[in-house]
């Protein structure tokens, strides 16, 4: 025992209602621990250790029985380690003289046989008891929180988060890779279920984000590198060259007008419209400054043109402008990087890309949008013909193991919205082919009712194929939607003029790389993983990195906005605290033992290890060290110790685990 005193350990086994007690003989484990394990002075079991009564039980024992070590066998430490450390602290025991065994996630929930489960539980408890006896009292590392915040992604979630924080008086760097903020929401026509115009409700937010004194807008920019830890991140941002001097540009738009090069706009107009080589994505763009698309600019490709430069009244066009690398210091980061639309060409039997009048949901949004390529006229690909009949296909690329097995959450409402818009704009006959209608939010189902009243035909069945191969005269020249009407139990071939594929949401193509830059991971489906699916949806496993909006999983606008605000609240909480205490899990070099072999020197990805030439020894900077312990394991001289994960502690735990044999 480091502190000289003999260990007096208390062991507490949680029933977790029946979650643990149902499979593990908790009374037996507690009794056994109390009687057989070295240093254990009391073993108790209790219905809910995490309840205030359970915690008081521990605190009381620490006082009455003069415990100097505590072990709790309950759920995963990731859930309640903090809780019980708190209990110890309240009772005046250093929180690091506590250890927790996961008897629920690792035993009762994964074992079927009671005897086997009980034995495993005993082993895990023994491990913790042996280990905790070797634990040292530690003081948490306190670091200051830099109040600046980095928000990545200027969609509605990112904008919301940025505004919340900026309004609270702290500085925000809002980064977007596109020339303007606004994200997907700026492309939409109407928003369900209220049908208010998407731009009308978003533009004001974009404007205030663009003009807010506490927000530095960095559009047409990418975050390339992030170093540091919670409270003290350093981010390197590449500002791509706009080829336009924003200090001179007034956003008058003459350059776009005069630019002779027209290209298909496959980002904002979803490939349905055109833009110039020098452009702002859309009229209400924030910031108002255009960018020159070098790949398509005649001057950059052919060496001559410069029309924009000629006409620019303020001489803002700067063909020689280069990318800039900016470095910003922030205390917290909010990722709101959004989603990609599922590429419907991956489902050939739906004919998108082969059959002209098959449209994707985003194409239709642009079609229906008053500022879109057809000024809001819903017409076929030929640009003039108004469809007489339209089929809307739900669940395209979603709820399908061949593509994405998850539900994209928005498609049902989106499809209902389309049905309404088509009906309203064209009076065409509308068929909605669905598997299930999912309208689980405020006044969503009411909207469904409304669409039903409008006379939309609902066909319950996942569309099998869309073809132009007619079988009977009635089908000639039409698109035929082949589907089983599962409520009738018969196959139907529905001839229509237009098909709208309600495509699902997919993680951004680069999500994994972005995750790596910020040190967070993606789920099997590719969405960023939150700290807890229910109780901590906007935090991540990495302190100081938060997520909001669709990058965390499919959701609609209200949900994205709430998450943006929630993430902001979490960040503001940290900023207000001003300082944060970190796990004192660090590596330390015993300079007397260090032989100066330098094996450890190149092991640290955080550059925490430096070699002191004059003394011929290695030093570790505790501020930079993240406590992974790789250098500890590598040191041949055993000169490096890992606090809270020392060899003595781990070896003791091994002893304990193996002290229980069948």
């Amino acid at each position, binding site marked *: 025992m480091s502190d000289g005193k003999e260990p007096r350990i208390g062991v507490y086994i949680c029933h977790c209602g029946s979650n643990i007690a149902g499979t593990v003989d908790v009374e037996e484990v507690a009794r056994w621990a109390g009687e057989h394990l070295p240093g254990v002075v009391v073993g108790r079991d209790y219905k809910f250790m995490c309840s205030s009564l359970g915690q008081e039980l521990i605190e009381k024992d620490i006082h009455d029985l003069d415990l100097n070590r505590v072990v709790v066998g309950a759920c995963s430490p990731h859930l309640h380690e903090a809780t019980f450390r708190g209990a110890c602290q309240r009772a005046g025991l250093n929180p690091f003289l506590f250890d927790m065994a996961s008897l629920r996630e690792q035993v009762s929930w994964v074992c079927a046989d009671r005897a086997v489960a009980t034995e495993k539980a005993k082993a895990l408890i023994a491990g913790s008891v042996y280990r905790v006896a070797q634990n040292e009292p530690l003081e948490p590392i306190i670091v200051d929180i830099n109040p600046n915040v980095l928000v990545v992604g200027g969609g509605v979630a990112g904008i919301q988060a940025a505004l919340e924080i900026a309004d609270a008086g702290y500085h925000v760097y809002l980064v977007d890779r596109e020339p303007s903020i606004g994200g997907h929401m700026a492309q939409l026509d109407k928003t369900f279920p209220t049908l208010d115009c998407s731009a009308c409700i978003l533009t004001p937010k974009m404007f205030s984000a663009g003009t807010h004194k506490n927000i530095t807008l960095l559009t047409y920019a990418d975050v390339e590198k992030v170093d540091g830890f919670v409270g003290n991140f350093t981010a390197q941002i590449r500002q791509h060259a706009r080829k336009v001097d924003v200090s001179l540009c007034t956003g008058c738009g003459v350059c776009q007008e005069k630019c002779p090069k027209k290209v298909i706009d496959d980002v904002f107009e979803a490939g349905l419209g055109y833009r110039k080589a020098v452009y702002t994505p859309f009229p209400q763009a924030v910031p108002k400054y255009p960018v020159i698309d070098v790949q398509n600019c005649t001057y950059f490709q052919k060496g001559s043109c410069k029309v924009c430069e000629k006409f620019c009244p303020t001489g803002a066009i700067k063909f020689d402008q280069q990318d800039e690398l900016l470095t910003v210091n922030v205390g917290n980061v909010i990722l709101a990087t959004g989603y990609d639309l599922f590429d419907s060409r991956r*489902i*050939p*039997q739906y004919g998108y890309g*082969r059959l002209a009048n098959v449209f994707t949901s985003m194409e239709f949004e642009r079609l229906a949008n008053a500022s879109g390529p057809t000024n809001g006229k819903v017409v076929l690909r030929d640009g003039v013909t108004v469809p007489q009949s339209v089929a809307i296909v739900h669940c395209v690329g979603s709820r399908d193991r061949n593509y994405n097995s998850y539900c994209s959450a928005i498609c049902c409402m989106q499809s209902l919205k389309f049905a309404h818009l088509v009906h309203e704009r064209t009076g065409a006959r509308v068929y909605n082919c669905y598997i299930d209608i999912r309208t689980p939010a405020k006044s969503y189902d009411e909207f469904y009712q409304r669409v039903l009243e409008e006379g939309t035909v609902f066909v319950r069945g996942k569309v099998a194929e869309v*073809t*132009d*191969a*007619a*079988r009977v005269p009635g089908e000639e020249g039409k698109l035929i939607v082949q589907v089983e009407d599962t409520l009738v139990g018969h196959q139907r071939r529905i001839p229509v003029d237009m098909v709208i594929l309600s495509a699902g949401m997919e993680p951004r193509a680069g999500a994994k790389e972005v995750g790596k830059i910020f040190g967070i991971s993606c789920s099997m489906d590719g969405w960023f993983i939150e700290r807890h699916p229910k109780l901590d949806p906007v935090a991540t496993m990495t302190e100081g990195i938060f997520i909001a909006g669709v990058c965390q999983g499919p959701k609609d606008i209200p949900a994205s906005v709430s998450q943006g605000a929630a993430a902001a609240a979490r960040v503001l909480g940290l900023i207000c605290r001003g300082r944060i205490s970190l796990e004192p899990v660090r590596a330390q070099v015993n300079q007397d033992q260090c032989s100066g072999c330098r094996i450890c020197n190149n092991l640290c990805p955080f550059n925490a290890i430096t070699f002191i030439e004059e003394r011929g020894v290695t030093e570790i900077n505790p501020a930079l060290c993240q406590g992974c312990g790789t250098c500890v394991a590598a040191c041949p001289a055993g000169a490096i110790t890992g606090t809270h994960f020392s060899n003595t502690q781990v070896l003791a735990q091994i002893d304990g685990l193996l002290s229980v044999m069948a």
Partner: protein
Amino acid sequence: MKYSYFPGCSLEHNAEAYDSSSRAIAGPLGLELVEVDDWNCCGATEYISLNMTAALALIARNLAQATKNGLDQMIAPCSACYLNLSKCDRYMVTTPELAERLNTALAAGGLSYQGGTIKVRHLIDVITEDVGLKTLASKVTRPLKGLRVAPYYGCLISRPGLRISEHNPEYPVSLDEILEALGAEVVDFPLKTHCCGGHMTQISESTGFDLIRQLVKGASDYQADMIVTVCPMCHLNLDAFQNGMNNFFKTNYQVPVAYFTQMIGLAFGMSARQLGFGTSLVSAGPALAKIGEELPAAAPAAGATKRKRDDKSLPMPTPLAAGQGKGGSGKGQGQEVSR
């Protein structure tokens, strides 16, 4: 390149042209085909409907036989054989219990087979992957210029995706590419992977004939001169049953059907006769004329003349004149040629 060759029952009789043309083009393409010794029927889609173990054992016997010549790759030109063989092999890998049962059965015939030993390939994959389109194109002496062909894959090589090769079960392109390499004008055929009906003509005429009608109609809607197929069953349905279908629906389509190997042979400058063109019921005459190839008169029914005695019971068909497409039943239907 040396491969085991599993012709399958169809290629012995109604798809003899597929067999002869495959063997004919093998040489130029540098493929050496070693016929699997004493192979047996793969059971088509019928046997598995009655007795799974027996059906799979029947197939496994072929795999076992194939191991005897020491080649680890087997070519099956017939889609049904191809699927059955590869499916059985797959099961024997994934389901040890089943593999054990099958080997117990094989043992009764003094044979055994270890799942995964033989790589079952369809001829079309061997040509696109092992030979390669470049080599194929380089051998073309008579490009099929001006010939509009509808590539028809059918089901069993497109699905259920057991194929080793990268391909799309809904929209494969390998056959399209081959035909383009031969210089033909390839139709973007929307029904390319639809179903020919398999044995449906024998189970329910209305169903079977309608599937045939859809395909033939599709092809002629797209003004294809001929349908090119990779499967004897598809060929039988589309060619041999085309007039039956015409009677059933009172239509008069006359879309000739050919095996892709026959087309390759043509492009290699081989004669239509050598490739067995004369043996289809719907005459390919008009189509072949487009590339200046004369259709041979229907092969004098060798079998028939030899076995006159047996024929007495049934009416003899009226002999076909070249270029005149009809079933030849003398019942007067199918005379008029569409287009």
